[in-house]
């Protein structure tokens, strides 16, 4: 999970630098990253979506790194944070992808990369359910 979360931090960080104007050209390939980034949905509750991504993936990264330490592998609080954060990231990314398809009519490949990362994180977080139920640590943190 830590590796995937790090990829998420890097992708979101790249988009955040664009949003802040530090990067003026996105390496977007055949996508329409600028259009997606200029849409009203690029800001959620007043917060730029890439900033939410950096914070969310950062939380998963730090929690996963703590969770692989000896003595923490069966920590139910760690399992709860990882599962909840990964589920939120998965749902939020799904909603953003739906917006790209239905409302914005443009695809940003970095956003799709982030959505794929969130999906991987969610799948990797599912074994945390066993930890929450008091089982042994078998997750892929």
């Amino acid at each position, binding site marked *: 999970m830590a590796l995937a979360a790090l990829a998420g931090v890097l992708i979101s960080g790249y988009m955040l630098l664009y949003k802040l104007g530090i990067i003026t050209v996105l390496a977007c390939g055949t996508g329409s990253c600028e259009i997606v980034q200029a849409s009203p949905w690029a800001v959620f509750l007043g917060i730029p979506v890439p900033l939410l991504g950096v914070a969310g993936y950062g939380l998963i990264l730090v929690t996963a790194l703590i969770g692989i330490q000896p003595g923490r*592998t069966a920590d139910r609080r760690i399992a709860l944070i990882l599962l909840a954060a990964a589920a939120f990231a998965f749902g939020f990314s799904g909603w953003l992808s739906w917006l790209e398809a239905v409302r914005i009519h443009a695809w940003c490949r970095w956003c799709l990369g982030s959505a794929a990362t969130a999906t991987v994180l969610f799948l990797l977080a599912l074994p945390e359910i066993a930890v929450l139920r008091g089982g042994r640590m078998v997750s892929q943190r």
Partner: protein
Amino acid sequence: MAKKGKAKGTARGRTQTPNLRLFYGLLALVGVVGIGWIGFSVANQSSANAAIAPIQLTGINTDSLLKQARGVNSGKPEASAQVIVFSDFTCPVCMNYVAMIEPQIRTEFVKTNRIRYTHYDFPLGGEPHRYGFIAARAARCAEDQNAFWEYHDVLFGRQNEWAYAREVPLDIFTDYAGRLNMDKDAFDACLRSDRFADVVTANRVLGERLGVGATPTIFIGGRSYNWSDYDAIKAAIEAELGDTTSQ
């Protein structure tokens, strides 16, 4: 992923298993490569402060959009017959339209002051249209010096020279301004700022609201027409003129 390498005793320092250390090494490698790539992207930008992509428009409703969106007119300003074209300077089809169809409209209807002919920006974005937005801004900077249409023709005529350039073609655009005897310094200052980013963005949004899905899209009397069918375009214009003269 890292859990497979179980730690024994404390996890600090040398008591970590080789697998866990290997994982940390891999994590660090990914981090360094990722940050390095982002740093390289930042360092290799030549566009300085030039706005090259649509911006966030505040309070987008129909009224505010119509105030921010602005076409560039030629022909008779008060003419009741109007041809509106949404186009992207990087679009090869638009280049064909400008080379083959637009000259006929200009000759027959614009230069004779029978219609108002209006250009609206519709930067497509993404590859291979990544420079459509900055090109639209460049044309607006030319408009500042009353040279929009001349610059428009140069941009389309030399599209292959700049549209696929490796770097943002700011220097090329400024060079074109010089060739058209414009004030290069004023043009360059305009280009390397965010001037007209709002107008170009608003034009794009306006096009989306009007159902523009491709470029060029030509509106005459509220209907869109196939860009390549000059006979249909001409008939539509004449119908508009006929309607207006009969009123």
